[in-house]
C-alpha cells in the first residue's frame, strides 16, 4: 500500500472491488490517523468511480473458441 497504487482502470473489477471494501472496513475501524484516512478515502472514491463506470458501460463480448453459433430463432429479447 506504500508503493504507488495501481490505477483503478488497470485493475480487475473483482480486485478493485475487494480493495474498495478493505478501505471501507479500515476506515470504519477508526484506527487510522486523519492524514491516512484522507488518503484512503481518496483512493476509495477513485476505485468506486472506476467500478461504477465499468458497471454502467460494460458491453458483452462474445468470442467463439470452437464452432459457429446459429442465429437465435427463439429470441425473446425485449
Amino acid at each position, binding site marked *: 500500500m506504500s508503493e504507488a497504487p495501481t490505477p483503478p482502470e488497470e485493475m480487475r473489477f473483482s480486485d478493485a472491488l475487494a480493495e*474498495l471494501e478493505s478501505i471501507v472496513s479500515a*476506515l470504519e475501524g477508526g484506527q487510522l490517523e486523519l492524514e491516512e484516512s484522507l488518503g484512503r478515502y481518496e483512493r476509495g472514491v477513485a476505485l468506486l468511480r472506476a467500478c461504477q463506470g465499468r458497471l454502467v458501460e460494460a458491453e458483452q463480448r462474445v468470442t467463439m473458441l470452437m464452432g459457429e453459433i446459429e442465429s437465435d430463432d427463439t429470441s425473446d429479447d425485449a
Partner: protein
Amino acid sequence: MPEAPRALSVTEAMTLAKRTLEGLPVRVIGEVSECTDRAGYKAVYFTLSDGSSTMSCLMWRDAFDASGVILRNGLLVEVSGSLTVYAAKGRMQFQVRGLEAAGEGVLRMQVAALARRLELEGLMRPERRRRLPEYPETIALVTSPRGKAVHDVIRTLRRRYPLAELLIAGVTVEGAGAAPAIVEGLRAAGESGADVVILARGGGSYEDLMPFNDEAVVRAIVGCPVPVVTGIGHEPDTSLADMVADVRASTPTAAAETVAPARDEVSARLTSSRRLLGRALLLTVRRDRHRVAVARAHAVFRDPAELTSSFSQRLDGAAAGLVRALPDVVGRDRSRLALAAGRLGPAQKRILDDAVTSFRHAAARLEDLSPLGILARGYAVCYEADGTSVVRSTTQLTPGDEVVVRLHHGSAGCVVRTIDEEKAGQS
C-alpha cells in the same frame, strides 16, 4: 411309403399356422418404426426392426394404454406376446401383450454402475467442489451452437453481468460423437484462461442425456483447472456430469445466473460502499476535532490570570483589611502611619507579582505530575480491591488477590496470578 399329407384348404393351412405359432410365448427386443396410434382404432399398430428384419406388431388399446409407454420412431422396446397369422391377408403379425422401453432400463443400469464406481473413487465428495469466483472476468460456455441453451446463457449474462467476456465452445451434444466433442470443448474452455466454465444443454430424453453420463466427460469435468457449473435441463434426472460438477444448476439459464452476480446487486453494493466510505471519514474527522477541542479546553490553555485571580483578590482584601486596621494599631502616630502606608504600596505589588509567578510555575508542574497525564502516556495505577489504596509493592499482594487497574480510559478488575519476589521493594 408314408402317406402323402392331404391337401389342405388355404383356411385350414392358415389355421394350422396360427395354432402352432400362438402356442409359443416370445419376447422380442427391437426398434420402433411406422407407429400408428389413432383414436378410435381398437388396436395400436407399429413395426419393430433390428436393422435387417422387420416385424409387424399389434397391441390392443387397453393393454397399450396400461403400459404407459409413449411410442416414437427409434425407441428401443421389449415386447412380449406371440406371433399370429392374419388369415384374411395371409400376413404374420406379432400380438403384443406386454410392452416396455428397453434401452432406457439397460442404460440406467449402466449409468448407476458407473456412478457407484466414481463415487468410490471419491469424485462426488462435496469437499471436492470448488468455490466459484465472485466476479468472473471471463466465462467459458461449452454447449451446442444450435438450439436454445446457448442463447439462453448469452442473453442471461448480457442482461445480468455484461462485464465478463464470454468464450463459447460450440460442440455436438447429441449422438455418437457427442462425448468426445464435449471433452474437447471442456479442454479448450479450461485452457482459455476463463475463471469458470458452464456446461449446458437444453431439455431432452434420458437417452439424449447419455453423453453427460459418459466417463470421459465426467473425468474432463473433474480435471478442469477452473470450476465447472452444469446447466443440463433434464429434471428430474441427474446426470453424472451434474454429480461431479462444482455447482449443479437445473437449466442453462440457471447456470448463467449462478456464475455471476446481477449488475443491480453489484451496483447496490457499490452504493453502500460509497455511503460507508463517506460516513467513516466523517467519523474520523469528528473524532479528531473532538480531541483537539478537549485539549483546548484543558486548564493550561485557559487564561493563566484566571487561575491566580482568586489569590489576587484575597491579597487585595488582606491589604485593605490591613489598611483599615492600621488606625486602631497605630492611631496616634499618623506620620508613621503615612510613612508605613507609603512603603506598603510597592511591597504589596512585589509580593503579588512573586506569588503570581510561583503559582504559574506550580500550575504548570501540576499538569506534568497529574496522575491522569501519566496515565495518558500509557502508565497504569494498581489499587487494592477496595479501589482506593495504591499497591506499591508485591509484599502487599498474594496470588489470587483481586486488584483494580486504573488506565487512562476506565479501569479493569484483575486477579493476581503470580508474584515476582526478586523485584519486590525496588522502585
